[in-house]
């Protein structure tokens, strides 16, 4: 029963990963990266590693996104390449 959820989450993780490195807007990249972290958190939770999921949700989806956004505020919003 948990197999389809696994596949959906993993497919979304891959999509988020590709989108995060391909968007031109760095703020959008930070937000998509946060979504990626949150999906990874879901994936850990599905696998039963609740402690890891909690850490991923707080550090990956929470604080590191704030750091990314704060860094984007002090640099250019759009990438050069």
């Amino acid at each position, binding site marked *: 029963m948990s197999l389809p959820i696994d596949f959906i989450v993993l497919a979304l993780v891959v999509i988020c990963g590709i989108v995060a490195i391909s968007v031109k807007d760095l703020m959008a990249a930070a937000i998509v990266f946060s979504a990626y972290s949150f999906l990874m958190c879901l994936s850990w939770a599905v696998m039963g590693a609740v402690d890891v999921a909690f850490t991923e949700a707080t550090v990956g989806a929470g604080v590191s996104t704030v750091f990314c956004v*704060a860094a984007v505020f002090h640099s250019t919003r759009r990438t050069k390449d």
Partner: protein
Amino acid sequence: MKITGLLTVIICGALLTYYAMDFPDFGDGRSPANTYLSPHFLENTMHDAHVPNSVTTILADYRGYDTMYETTVVLTAGLACFFLLRRKESTSPPARFFRHVPTGLTLRIEEGGKLPAENSKVFTRIDSLWAPDSLIIRNTCRLIIAFVQLFALYVVAHGHYSPGGGFQGGVLLGSSIILFSISNDLRRTLKRFREKTAAVLGAIGVLIYSGTGFVCLLMGAHFLNYEALSPLLGLKTGDPMARSHGIFSVEIGVAFAVMSVMIWIYYNLSSAGKHDEGL
């Protein structure tokens, strides 16, 4: 250059996938990790440390030495941000912005102009970069922050029984301060939680962790062997609760270190080291 990068990524990814196929399957009962190591930890955590959540026992007791250096790595990250970004002299921006509170007008005062008093009730300084003034955001965050902090304390204290522990609770505590800084401004946050406090608390957190280990050493046991703490806690020798309390004291150290380092990194990153105008 792009094609070379793509080729490197594809080759590395193919090699990783190829070798990952040799790994034991997820949840394979016959894999080396699951034959003796995991069952040993799962069966003995209650007997050894009286902690139902085996992850906490592994992290803070069986692998305590490892976690001590993880905490040190977090502190080092904060120090690295400090040394890279912090500027000693605060270079004031050419123009400062003030909001006239009764009317909501924004004033732009050029360099050399007469600035309002520092503790003026009528004029409040606002950031030049990004200064939304939303009553809803400020009051909602004011309400939420207290509950975030309460939940963080619960996560730290209840890490023995439920998912969580020092790292997660510390990050939650830190993010509550960051939330205050985002919903108000950096200068007001710095008045409540100064940079020096963050630096000292981070070091104190690591000191609590290693200090627990040294107390064990002084009591005649190995470094971070919490069993030796039982006479200090008024417990019988060999009582598993000694290890439980040892884990708790270590978790408090981790929470202190992680909380203040998160805030410290945020201060330096959001204001580009100037600690004047932030996100």
